[in-house]
């Protein structure tokens, strides 16, 4: 997994509520494709005109936000489908952090699995970062510093944020979850042996 320590750049505002993972990446782009190469399809139904040209009204097409690593989002961002392709597509567009008042639960977990940092911040804080960024026409950057757990706004205010301690360590170190879990292999096997004895009904009919 990619490490995450600190990113800096213009924060792109897309503040509408309930942006679902179907909007982030249509399912048709995920049928038989891999984790990479999805960037051009992120938000494609909003991002392009019918003829395939860029929609100039779509905020992420504005020149100041084209290479933005930070997305400012609205409540319930990433709701809906469990498709991890939503994270892969956002990362393919260059995003490494998403700041929103709330997230869809599965999307939130999927972010951490890929070195993307989702941060929950109050709506007014996100609005402030958006306003400061817009006032500077994207010339002033927002910084997301995971080690210090602060977001530095374009005008220099430091906003602390909460992050799960376990996820923070995994992001900073780029840890492999499976290897970490398999350190508990004996306990996993022990749990099963005990449960097999206690709840034979849960296991007998699927054993071979």
């Amino acid at each position: 997994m990619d490490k995450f320590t600190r990113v800096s750049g213009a924060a792109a505002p897309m503040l509408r509520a309930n942006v679902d993972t179907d909007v982030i990446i249509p399912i048709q782009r995920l049928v038989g494709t891999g984790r990479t190469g999805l960037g051009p399809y992120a938000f494609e139904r909003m991002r392009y005109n019918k003829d395939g040209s860029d929609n100039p009204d779509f905020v992420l097409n504005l020149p100041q936000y084209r290479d933005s690593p930070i997305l400012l989002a609205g409540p319930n961002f990433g709701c809906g489908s469990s498709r991890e392709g939503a994270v892969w597509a956002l990362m393919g567009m260059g995003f490494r952090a998403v700041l929103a008042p709330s997230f869809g639960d599965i999307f939130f977990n999927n972010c951490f699995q890929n070195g993307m940092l989702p941060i929950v911040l109050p709506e007014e804080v996100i609005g402030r970062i958006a306003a400061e960024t817009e006032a500077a026409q994207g010339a002033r950057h927002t910084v997301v510093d995971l080690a210090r757990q602060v977001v530095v706004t374009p005008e220099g205010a430091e906003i602390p944020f909460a992050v799960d301690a376990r996820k923070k360590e995994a992001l900073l170190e780029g840890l492999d979850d499976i290897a970490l879990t398999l350190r508990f292999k004996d306990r996993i096997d022990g749990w099963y042996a005990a449960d097999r004895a206690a709840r034979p009904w849960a296991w007998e009919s699927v054993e071979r």
Partner: protein
Amino acid sequence: MPATLFDKIWDPHVVADLGAGWSLLYCDRVLVHDLSGGRALQEVGEAGYAVARPELVFATPDHAVSSAPGRTSETFPTGAKLLAGLRRRAAETGVRLFDLGQDGNGIVHVMGPELGIVLPGTTLVCGDSHTCTNGGVGALAFGIGASELKHVLATQTLPQRKPKRMRVRFEGSAPEGVTPKDMILAAIGRFGAASGTGYAVEYAGSAVRALSVEGRLTLCNLSIEMGAKIGMVAPDETTIEWLKGRDFAPKGAAWEAAVAAWHALPSDEDAVFDRDLLIDMRDIAPQITWGTSPEQVLPITGNVPDPADAPDAEKRGAWEAALAYMGLTPGAPIIGTKVDWVFIGSCTNSRIEDLRAAAAVLRGRHVASHVTAWVVPGSERVKHAAEAEGLDAAFREAGFEWREPGCALCVAANGEAVPPGARCVSTSNRNFVGRQGTGARTHLASPAMAAAAAIAGAIADVRHFAA
């Protein structure tokens, strides 16, 4: 200490406390499907791991398979590659596969309960957000992403944080035309599409107790549209009767032990929920969504909302965008809105009772001439059961296409789609922008409401179509 149904399943499944609120949770069952299953099984091997417990993993193609009558696995070529991968990896790893056209095949959340793969008191995960459906039999089931799927295949466990507990009680008896779909849509409309985020939801109350298992599966299915990864209904005699004799349900002495264990699962009388909500069934009418989020829903007698009446600027913007996409006029009655397509199917509403309810409305009537109407049974078994009852004939005579099991128009990942601009009344679970196809306009409703819309050629009140 009093405990909820959710605690009674979660707590005994904790293998290890990982600190900082994290638990390593044992997953009793894993379901995989064609869209991500083959690749997940492959990636486990490529990362140097083995599939930990292949006998606990069950595979079925559903997402990217054609639903056309007479389909084969080659009918949708892109999906054929995915299915070939799933077949190959399932065979290599020893995972049971219920292949296309075989007994047991179907939409993953239809076939899982149907075969007794998912049982009360068990934990289940699947790389699909509607895994919450399976909570309808009293299991703790939730959807996961591709990386978590790989993790669970390699270890049979997942590191998870325990969610909070929420209860939604539906009290009273169902008014005319009100189905489980209407109950859950009404709850999402009232409480919001993010109201369940961070919670495991238990549905309770007299109206839930009165539901069949099929109805409870429908109720739990839309938990994720309320933001909750987990939805559950406590097992009772209805559940036990429904599960008895199913393929992977316990047998003999094990069955007796299971039933005894299941009787202890319901939430204790004095169990405490972090959030406790109540809905009076008398307040629910048949529902229809008008917008592009499941929370944008109306009773069928309602009018399309006017953004001028929105409670705040953010909602106003959302309503305006939804109305523009849906091509609706603020303030106009939703009833009578012309419909081009009707889809009956999906892991929400493709079970035998759903098909019976729709067919009951259709008998002696015909689909409006301008409407394309599809019914896609949820599984091979649902299809055969329906055919044995003559439901396929009832649908065909009414002008519906009787198709092959799969996700089909719910997710449009199989080459089938509602055309741009077309309006579809759908029994599925998401009315998101582009969900049923680029530019497609989706109105979510119950199977009976969908049948009524097909006949009327417009959004209609099922109560005007009494059988």
